[in-house]
């Protein structure tokens, strides 16, 4: 039975280890007081890992998590006297969808180049942009900035948790991985298209399905957010 204990201990320590984010930015404070910040549709998908590790998308978890993230983000802005502008889905058009898609792509590139193994040898300063097209958001929503959030998360089903423990005991050394979370967010200046603040992470714990935990996660994601 001692082996089981060791495994439990391992899981325990594993899930408690702290994580570090590394925010990147070009501004520390907002130039104007009470800036208006448009929250773009949160690109989020939450899934449940089956016993064998298939990622089964969950619409209800995704819906709850999305709401929690939005509430938590609104609280962050309130503390900074920034005004949250709501996105209107009925006003969406192809050009706006393209901007959202572009952000997902650029965000992944930032993670690769600024955080990962593919650092560009000559790119020393943090400097990324979504281009001038974002001005159409400024015009439509009378906002100074836009926030883009990308979020993917997985949670193990109960069966998978049990399966993981059994496997770990029977075959020491093999531990089926639990869920992992990948998230990134950008603050985009709607005059220039420049990404003025960015943060992202990849980790194997954390939960956004309930508000309390979502607050912690979103606080961490918006570390060193200007204001």
């Amino acid at each position, binding site marked *: 039975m001692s082996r089981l204990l060791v495994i439990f201990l391992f899981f325990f320590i594993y899930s408690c280890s702290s994580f570090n984010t590394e925010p990147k930015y070009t501004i520390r404070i907002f130039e104007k007081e009470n800036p208006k910040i448009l929250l773009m549709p949160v690109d989020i*998908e939450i899934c449940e890992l089956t*016993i064998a590790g298939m990622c089964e998308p969950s*619409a209800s978890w995704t819906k709850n998590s999305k709401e929690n993230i939005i509430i938590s983000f609104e609280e962050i802005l309130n503390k900074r006297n920034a005004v949250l502008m709501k996105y209107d889905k009925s006003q969406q058009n192809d050009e706006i969808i393209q901007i959202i898609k572009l952000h997902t792509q650029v965000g992944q590139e930032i993670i690769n180049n600024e955080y990962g193994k593919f650092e560009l040898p000559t790119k020393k300063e943090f400097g990324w942009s979504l281009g001038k097209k974002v001005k159409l958001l400024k015009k439509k929503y009378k906002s100074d900035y836009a926030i883009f959030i990308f979020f993917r998360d997985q949670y193990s089903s109960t069966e998978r948790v049990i*399966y993981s423990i*059994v496997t770990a005991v029977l075959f020491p050394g093999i531990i089926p991985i639990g869920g992992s979370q990948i998230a990134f967010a950008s603050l985009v200046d709607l005059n220039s298209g420049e990404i003025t603040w960015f943060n992202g992470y990849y980790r194997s714990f954390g939960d956004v399905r309930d508000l309390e935990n979502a607050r912690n996660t979103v606080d961490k994601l918006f570390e060193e957010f200007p204001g």
Partner: protein
Amino acid sequence: MKKIFLFIIIFLGSCATPIGGAKKVEDIKPQETPSIESIEAGLWMSMNNYEEKLKTSGSRLKDKDLEKYLKNILCNLTPEYCKDIRVYVQNMPYFNAFMAPNGMMVVWTGLLLRAQNEAQVAAVIGHEAGHYIKRHSLKSWLDAKSRTDLMAILSIGLAVGGIPSAGDIFNVTQLLQAGFMAKHSRDNEREADKIGLDFLIDAGYDPGEAPKVWENIIKEMELGEANKPLTFLASHPAPEERIENLKKQTEEYENIKNKKNMKEFKEKIQPHLKKWIKNEIRLKNKLEQTEFVLEKTFEDNENDYLLKFYKGEIYRLIGVKEEENNYDKAIDYYDESIKAKNDFPDVYRELGLLQLKIEKNEEAKKNLKKYLELAKNPKDAAIIKSYLN
């Protein structure tokens, strides 16, 4: 200790959806949407996100009119589900079409190029609608889930049960898995074929066109390398069997009409033909395969000059390969095209440029001049003129 594990394994096993459990899934009703707590809602969510991206994707064919035409075919086949299914055309030079659980249907341009008339396209669209109605995506998902769960549990179970070699465990479970998967996929295809045929006949199309789609694909496949099956066939049952089934099933119907609508269909794809054929040629399929596709496209003999022109294009693009010079062959085909119709500008352009390349300058200039004359101020007029001096 062993008993505890066996208990856990049995417990886990009981959680997993049993194989075949997916069969209880009922048909989706018109305008039905899944409840948010369901697994199906999760699949819809994922596909809705994908669809939103596809809408503005560079790979989507920018021809709303053609998409509308295909949607009308669908609505004509099944008015009930007309509102539930959206049809998109994607620029991909392969024979394929697929249906997502949320009602997103995607048709590839390679399929439209190969279809000879509206009835054949309708056969494919009806088949895909069948997948939607029968909820095949959901069934496949549930099935894959229970299969992989079972495999995971079995690997522990077999280990506890005393089979030590990991390799053996892998083999047994893999074999089980492969068998279930193939059977399931074939059953779904058969079911969708039947629904597609019902729709086709009800809408007054010639049901004989449905097996023809497959007959042509088989012929094309046989001309290529045997180990390179078309994408569409990787997950589908043997086409020979489908042809048999479709023909047999057709015998059970009365009041069969024979609408084909070749002209309507050809008109709709006409503006894209040049580009699609170019993409087809660039695929570097075997020469015989590409020629076969072209022969089928121009089977009606009305546009023989185009068939000859594109054949010329195939040989021109192959160029000099393995010490074989294909340029002469290309020129022969261009000449035949001109013989069939002497005022098609494109052929003079390609012929002229090719002659320039192989330094038959006088003839080249003559043909390029003819091109400028016929094309009436084309976009590339300036560069073509520069070759004339």
